């Protein structure tokens, strides 16, 4: 029982990180038809921004702020202006391929600059265990879960309770009409890119202490976020949350109870089952697109 609870909480924590990254992924898709295959590398990179700032002698917390700021600038603003805007004029597919190229470029650049080794990364959550229902549970997992949940709740409040949030939703649901009623559509799309940059920076901060800072960590994370988004429903924020949590839990439990060797196959198995039987995802709606 104690083992199960720990696995469940660890799974939820991993899943919450997947969810945070998957939400950004679906937001970009919804507002601008951007499928960002570099999303995993976007999670890998902020940790290196933070490490670089720490190497310059900044204290951890300040380095975190610098890392978030650089993420907003590079992974939000520059990503949109330099890569997405020009490529999207040629269509969704050229853009998707360009983001694959970006993924490789980012990975190899980090390998060049920082070596292929894994670098340790400080945790924002203190180590140790806390008592939950008489069972010692990892503080790290609980902390990650709480922070990720708070971030998702905050984002949800922004999207559902504020005028800017409504304008962003309107832009995602019907960009032509959004323009007609006077919503600054371009600015709303930029906001989603900045939100995505913020989310990947947060994901980076939460996941790197566990996986360590390594040029290749994005591969697993990007794949997990992609699967979480599809499993939950590509066009829904709550779908990404559900998909992320489900994937994290299934992943952890399967590793413990089924086979650690087949662990990596489990998310893919889940993906295939969902695509076969519920292609719009668990919470997604069927989308009609005019060509």
């Amino acid at each position, binding site marked *: 029982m104690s083992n199960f609870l720990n696995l469940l909480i660890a799974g939820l924590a991993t899943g919450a990180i997947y969810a945070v990254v998957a939400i950004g992924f679906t937001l970009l898709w919804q507002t601008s038809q951007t499928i960002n295959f570099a999303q995993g590398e976007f999670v890998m990179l902020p940790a290196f921004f933070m490490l670089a700032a720490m190497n310059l002698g900044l204290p951890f917390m300040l380095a975190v702020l610098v890392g978030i700021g650089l993420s907003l600038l590079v992974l939000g603003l520059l990503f949109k202006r330099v890569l997405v805007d020009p490529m999207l004029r040629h269509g969704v597919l050229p853009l998707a391929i360009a983001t694959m190229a970006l993924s490789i470029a980012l990975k190899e650049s980090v390998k060049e600059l920082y070596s292929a080794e894994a670098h340790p990364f400080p945790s924002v959550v203190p180590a140790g265990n806390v008592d939950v229902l008489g069972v010692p549970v990892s503080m790290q997992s609980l902390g990650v879960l709480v922070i990720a949940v708070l971030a998702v709740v905050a984002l949800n409040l922004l999207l559902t309770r504020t005028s800017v949030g409504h*304008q962003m939703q*309107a832009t995602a649901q*019907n960009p*032509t009409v959004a323009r*007609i*009623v006077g919503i*600054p559509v371009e600015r709303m799309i930029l906001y989603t890119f900045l939100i995505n940059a913020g989310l990947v920076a947060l994901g980076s901060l939460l996941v790197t202490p566990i996986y360590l800072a390594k040029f290749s960590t994005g591969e697993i994370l990007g794949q997990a976020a992609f699967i979480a988004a599809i499993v939950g429903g590509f066009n829904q924020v709550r779908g990404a949350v559900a998909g992320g949590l489900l994937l994290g839990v299934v992943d952890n439990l399967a590793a413990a109870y089924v086979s650690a060797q087949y662990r990596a196959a489990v998310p893919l198995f889940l993906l295939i089952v969902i695509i076969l039987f519920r292609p719009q995802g668990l919470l997604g709606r069927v989308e009609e697109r005019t060509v």
Partner: protein
Amino acid sequence: MNDIVLEVRDIVGGYGPMTILNGTSFDVAKGAITTIIGPNGAGKSTAFKAIFGLLKVRSGSIRFLGRDVTNAPPRRLLEAGICYVPQGRNIFPELSVRHNIELGAVAAGRSITDMPRRIEAALDRFPVLRRKANQQASTLSGGEQKQLEIVRGLLLDPKLVLIDEPSIGLSPMMVQETFGILKDLRARGVSILMVEQNARSALEISDYGIVLELGQTRIVDKADRILHDPRIGQLFLGGGLAA
């Protein structure tokens, strides 16, 4: 014609290499309903897109209340007092009815302070929308969605309403109701430019009619004279006026 709110002069435009508007010219009279009719592909909806800044005009000019607004972006036209209700369904399906309506005020920014009051007044005028204010807009019927679009467009107190095919997909009763709203607006001094397939019913409530064919203005006249013009039947039955 009495005072003119909108002057469209020799506009040329289209999609890509295709030219749809071929030197289209017409005026829209103040406080009146003007209906554009014409066969499919005549450029009626395209003219609306050109006026509302959604389609680039290659040459010619559009003036609103004496000011040049050729190729002005939608946001500026909204601020100037034009609103556009396009053809078909133009709602944000997953937002509530109330939030859909509120988004009609976005272009005003903070310059209009009594927006909450205006939204309440609009909901009072359309009890169906008030009853369903907190439901997802996708749950509204076609006619209710059209009402929502009109209400949303009216929040900024436009001087000119461009409305494209308001009757499409609506039951005859809803069509009469929608036309009734347009007549109320005219009574309040709002100018209306409408495109309508349902030419006869539209002309019956209109003051002026414009006949477009192949992107050019063929006839501009009082609506009742167009209604009784034998050439109109001929135009809609094919054959064309130029022949």
